[in-house]
């Protein structure tokens, strides 16, 4: 994995001019303009016929320097920027950042704010998983699930829109709590949504889980062992599908997660099919959490006392949350001024993408597409 294109030269791209039979190896350039690379990922494949001998990702086509921008913004002003990293799960990004700064400032959000945060974050996890399912299925050739998932994702986006006025890059939370009180009928909407979407998840599973072609395309494809997962720092559903029961919501509970009863679904084989099953199960667990949260949401203030000008004490902090794609961490260094000295983001997509080479070796070209889909990467987050 490399950020620069300069190291590509050792692959000797001139070889691609040879025909299939001259050399045992063929270099195929997939992307950045390719329908199945989920944005602008460029993958250079080293092939033996259709078998992948190795691959190299070239990233940075969507680099916007988010971390650098943070050094010239106040803590409050930087908050909306994090939404633009993983734009599919903007709420999770905001939650991680707000909680990190709160930890640095040594304040705590009030319980009602925590509950609202949990509800919105879990809704966003659902939305992210639905988008993943739709595009993943489309990559493997099933067209229809995409439209089903987008239909249901729309309901989540509607709730977001009513809550904070934005659908995608929500900027839902503020440092110290939430800016907005829930709108009238929020609880009703969320309850209605939970009842609405539970049978829809069954519907997706009906289309895919026992579909022979789907099973053949995903079973034993892109297998990664628990040991390799840990060695590569892979987190999220990919890690859990390999059998490691690691979920930060359980391991280091943040927000109000400690109060809810939910399970961490795991797989055994660590292949694409298991990752699919794990994510489907996670969607159901998210619904469980939302149901408990909406039933037990307390009354009270939604904002802690935060001064207008934030000047955290000198120090550094690392805080991570369980984003839909894995562990999303923020490392913030404060020099005592109003602006952070350094912000470093640990994006789950970037770290998970490292494992692509390992997962694709020995597989076929068509599997590379399936594996890119199952890693659930968002290039905005990889490149930042």
């Amino acid at each position: 994995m490399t950020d620069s294109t300069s190291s590509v030269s050792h692959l000797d791209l001139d070889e691609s001019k040879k025909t299939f039979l001259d050399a045992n190896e063929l270099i195929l350039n997939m992307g950045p303009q390719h329908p199945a690379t989920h944005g602008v990922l460029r993958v250079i494949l080293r092939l033996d016929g259709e078998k992948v001998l190795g691959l190299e990702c070239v990233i940075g086509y969507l680099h916007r320097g988010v971390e650098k921008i943070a050094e010239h913004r106040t803590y409050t002003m930087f908050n909306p920027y994090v939404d633009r990293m993983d734009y599919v799960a903007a709420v999770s990004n905001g939650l991680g950042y707000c909680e990190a700064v709160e930890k640095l400032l040594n304040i705590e959000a009030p319980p009602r704010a925590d509950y609202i945060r949990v509800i919105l974050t879990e809704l966003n996890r659902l939305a992210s998983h639905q988008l993943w399912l739709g595009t993943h299925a489309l990559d493997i050739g099933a067209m229809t699930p995409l439209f089903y998932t987008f239909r249901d994702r729309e309901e989540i986006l509607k709730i977001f829109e009513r809550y904070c006025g934005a659908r995608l890059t929500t900027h839902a939370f503020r440092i110290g709590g939430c800016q907005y009180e829930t709108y009238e009928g929020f609880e009703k909407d969320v309850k209605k949504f939970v009842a609405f979407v539970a049978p829809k998840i069954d519907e997706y599973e009906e289309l895919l889980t026992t579909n022979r072609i789907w099973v053949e395309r995903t079973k034993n494809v892109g297998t990664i062992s628990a040991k390799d997962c840990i060695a590569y720092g892979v987190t999220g559903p990919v890690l859990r599908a390999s059998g490691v029961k690691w979920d930060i919501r359980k391991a280091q509970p943040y927000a109000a997660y400690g109060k809810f009863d939910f399970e961490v679904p795991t797989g055994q084989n660590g292949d694409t099919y298991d990752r699919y099953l794990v994510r489907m199960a996670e969607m159901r667990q998210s619904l469980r959490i939302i149901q408990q949260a909406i039933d037990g949401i307390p009354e009270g203030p939604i904002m802690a006392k935060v001064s207008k000008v934030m000047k955290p004490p000198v120090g550094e902090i690392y805080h991570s949350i369980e984003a839909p794609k894995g562990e999303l961490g923020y490392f913030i260094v404060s020099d005592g001024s109003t602006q952070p000295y350094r912000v470093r983001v640990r994006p789950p997509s970037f770290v998970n993408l490292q494992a692509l080479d390992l997962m694709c070796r020995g597989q076929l070209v068509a599997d590379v597409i399936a594996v890119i889909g199952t890693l659930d990467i968002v290039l905005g987050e990889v490149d930042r």
Partner: protein
Amino acid sequence: MPSFITSYLDKNIHVTPGQYGSPFWALVYILVVFGGVSLAVVCMNWLERKILAHMQIRLGPMRVGPHGLLQPIADAIKLILKEDIIPEGADRFVFWIAPMIILLAVFSVYTVVPFGPTHAITDMNIGILFMLGVSSLGVLGIVMAGWASNSHYPLIGALRSSAQMVSYEVAMGLAVISAVVMTSLNAEGTGTLSMIGIVQAQYAQHVWFIFKFFPLGLIAFFIFAVAMVAETNRAPFDLPEAESELTAGFHTEYSGLRWSLFMLGEYAAMIAVSSIAITLWLGGWMRPFPNLLSGPTWDLAFSFFPALTFFALAGMTFYSTMRMPRHSYFRVQTIGLGAFGAVFAVIGLILLLPGVNGRVQDIYWFIFKIAVFMYLYIWYRGTFPRYRFDQLMKVGWKILLPMGIGVLMLTGIVALRTELWDFMHEALRRLVHV
């Protein structure tokens, strides 16, 4: 009228114009069939988009004409007016001729498709062999298109496509042969390869071959039904055109009119292979139960079906017209939809005329069966993910091919069971009395 026109219209002639040797009527049939197929492809285009859209909770084309009915025409105009790009370094002649070869191969198949006992351009005594052979020429066009484009993705797409078509042709041929074996179960003991002869054999044996020697006919039909989807490169076997892997396969570099020729060829090929399946296993032009429910009363009852279909279509259209929003903005669309309904109704009325309704029977049932197959094609596309290439080959060579060989052998054994029994009896008798 000159005799070369009238002579074929003699009431005593019950053969196709090709067999009778009437070039004029053969030409008329050729024009009608080719025009009809092109029109069917245009309709298929609209129907596929609408049906797929409704399966996927979308509306599909809605803007051009009422319910997007004029969309295919708009598309055709767009494609004709588009610039025809030939990529740098392409082999211009081969690039230019490849879509023509595909079209030529596909449309040649229609020369022997029997829409009725006399409604075919001609009937050959090697009919089914001709159909298989000519439809296999389409591979050449695909290979040429992929090679001439001078680009990676089309080349890989073409190699995949030709490998796929060549390997599924084997299973397809075995399934076809097992149906041909069934035609030989008559008094003379000789089968036939002629398309019309095969349908007549089904009539004579009082059974569609899909139900013959249950479940052997069904299995052979199943093999053919899978192989024909693979032959036409449709989902779930659409690897050569797999968007997510090869952008558009062998026709990536094509644009405008030439690209539309590929599409025309693909849809025409779907109709062609469906008509092979219908002829071989589903009784061709015959209406359901031609022997069981025979007699003038049943004939009369079934003769209303074509008109009823069109009345149903007209009814649906009128119902949609009623439901159009009553707003001046939609006035033209509403009137257009009503006009469509009126056209359907008028066609239905014409089909009720006594001279007409008897003659369109065969054609109606054949087209009805094709329509069912076309719906299945769209349904597959909306439901299945795509196979991987090695899995596709596995299905072709390790599942369908052994199944085909097994079915063929079993069909032969069952067809010759009395002879086999006699032979073994005789052999045993001799062995005992030695």
